[in-house]
């Protein structure tokens, strides 16, 4: 296909534990920063995409930015599974001609205003309607004490760990590498605070025997925005375009978000395999062509499972792949070079996309040498971004 979309601008607020302002203000500040980065007048935005669970209205954000006439809006379900899907759908909207300039945003006071990590139990029993966010099957977990994202993820992972002999200590290598990256990233909450494997092993159990505290992402306040337009238009803007070489979603049969217990093979993440197949077919590229992988890391096991699904190592071998500096800058496949959701901030996956853009522009703090292609994945969606 000859027609491509590109990322023309990125923007963000500071990442904190208490932003001191409304989520709408965070969304507006991040969007304005992304549009400034691109060199686009906010009035000219005509598309808006965010998560179903984002707390801000399109109209509210349009009023802040002074948008003249929105032509296209949509929202994506699945919590963090929406993150890279926003890029996919923005690219589809732009290349189809539905709109020309899309602002994608996610803004949240997820530490100071509410916390995803706290137990979630509906106040009363009985029949409810929970559709729309992609997480309705969590109802089957709550009366059994699985009431947090960590518990849902852990239950989806223990089987995998037992099958391949993966220990919690093995998972610690992911945290250590990412905290090393965060330690040299001034934008990261954990800037200047690397950890050792022993620190990881001494952190408290969150969900035994899978997740310790240092296997879990942060809870953060902050906003991130990304501007997507046609490659043709992006070439006339301020930044060197980052082309969306391929983007995809995949939700295979019986797969669901996080409480992913009902598909055939619990050792696999079928949605990530589905995304990988589409991305590689769509771009003509292969795992060996990637110089960077930005992988949704709400919890460390998700990194292992996605490394396998995207073909960077064989099934069951990620526990070894993540050792020995392999996933650090300078290693065979640098992963989450901003520190990821674990080390930089938890802006629901969006800050992992902006890091890929910085790497492809050559402006990252922990710059990877000779960047051409970056994989960005959130499990149910992914993109291959390129500066070529």
């Amino acid at each position: 296909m000859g027609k491509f979309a590109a990322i023309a601008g990125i923007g963000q607020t500071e990442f904190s534990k208490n932003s001191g302002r409304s989520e709408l203000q965070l969304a507006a500040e991040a969007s304005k920063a992304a549009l400034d980065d691109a060199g686009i007048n906010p009035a000219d935005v005509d598309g808006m995409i965010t998560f179903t669970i984002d707390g801000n209205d399109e109209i509210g954000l349009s009023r802040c930015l002074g948008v003249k006439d929105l032509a296209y809006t949509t929202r994506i379900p699945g919590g963090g599974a929406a993150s890279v899907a926003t890029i996919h759908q923005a690219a589809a909207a732009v290349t189809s001609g539905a709109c020309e300039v899309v602002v994608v945003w996610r803004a949240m006071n997820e530490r100071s205003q509410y916390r995803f990590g706290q137990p979630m139990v509906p106040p009363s029993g009985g029949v409810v309607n929970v559709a729309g966010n992609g997480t309705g099957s969590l109802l089957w977990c709550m009366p059994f004490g699985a009431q947090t994202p960590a518990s849902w993820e852990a239950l989806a992972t223990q089987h995998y760990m037992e099958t391949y002999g993966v220990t919690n200590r093995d998972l610690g290598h992911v945290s250590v590498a990412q905290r090393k990256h965060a330690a040299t990233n001034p934008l990261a909450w954990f800037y200047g605070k690397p950890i050792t494997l022993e620190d990881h092993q001494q952190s408290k159990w969150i969900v035994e025997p899978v997740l310790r505290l240092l296997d879990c992402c942060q809870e953060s306040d902050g906003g991130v925005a990304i501007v997507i337009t046609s490659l043709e238009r992006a070439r006339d803007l301020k930044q060197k375009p980052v082309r969306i070489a391929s983007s995809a979603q995949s939700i295979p049969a019986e797969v669901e978000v996080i409480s992913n217990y009902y598909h055939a093979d619990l050792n696999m993440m079928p949605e990530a395999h589905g995304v990988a197949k589409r991305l590689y077919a769509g771009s003509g590229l292969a795992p060996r062509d990637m110089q960077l992988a930005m992988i949704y890391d709400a919890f460390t096991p998700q990194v292992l499972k996605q490394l396998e699904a995207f073909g960077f190592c064989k099934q069951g071998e990620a526990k070894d792949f993540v050792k020995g500096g392999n996933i650090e800058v300078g290693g065979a496949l640098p992963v989450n070079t901003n520190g990821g959701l674990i080390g930089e901030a938890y802006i629901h996956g969006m800050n992992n996309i902006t890091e890929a853009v910085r790497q492809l522009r050559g402006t990252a703090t922990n710059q990877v040498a000779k960047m051409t292609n970056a994989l960005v994945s959130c499990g149910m969606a992914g993109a291959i971004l390129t500066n070529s």
Partner: protein
Amino acid sequence: MSSNDNPAPPAATRPDPVFTADAVFFWEGIARGELLGQRCADCKKLTHPPRPMCPACHSVKRETVKLSGRGKVASWVIPRHPAPVGFAESPIVALIELEEGIRLVSNLIDVGPDAVRGGLAVEVRFAPTRGGKAVPVFTPAKARARG
């Protein structure tokens, strides 16, 4: 939880089940002490979680079937922090693969973490919730009277 019925057990604190309209049959069955599955009335495909249409033949005719209540542990964890709401001690949360081939999230009782492993044979029991409802839980099959 022991099988000793005396003295009276403390009041249940476990959260009540919350469910969608298409899962009412399941929880009504549990309230009667029956573990029920949903099957397509036309092609007989068993599905979980429940749904209003059969994904194989697209029939909307459903029937409930009594499940054996026997299965094995597919995955298990113990949520430690933050403490689960409604539990005096952290329960063992388990994914149970039933003989009939469907999986359910549940709890393991009568067994400690040291004795739990993937593939452990289990069978269903029922545990009360704080609002007078019940949920299915599982105990190691060896605890069942032989024969």
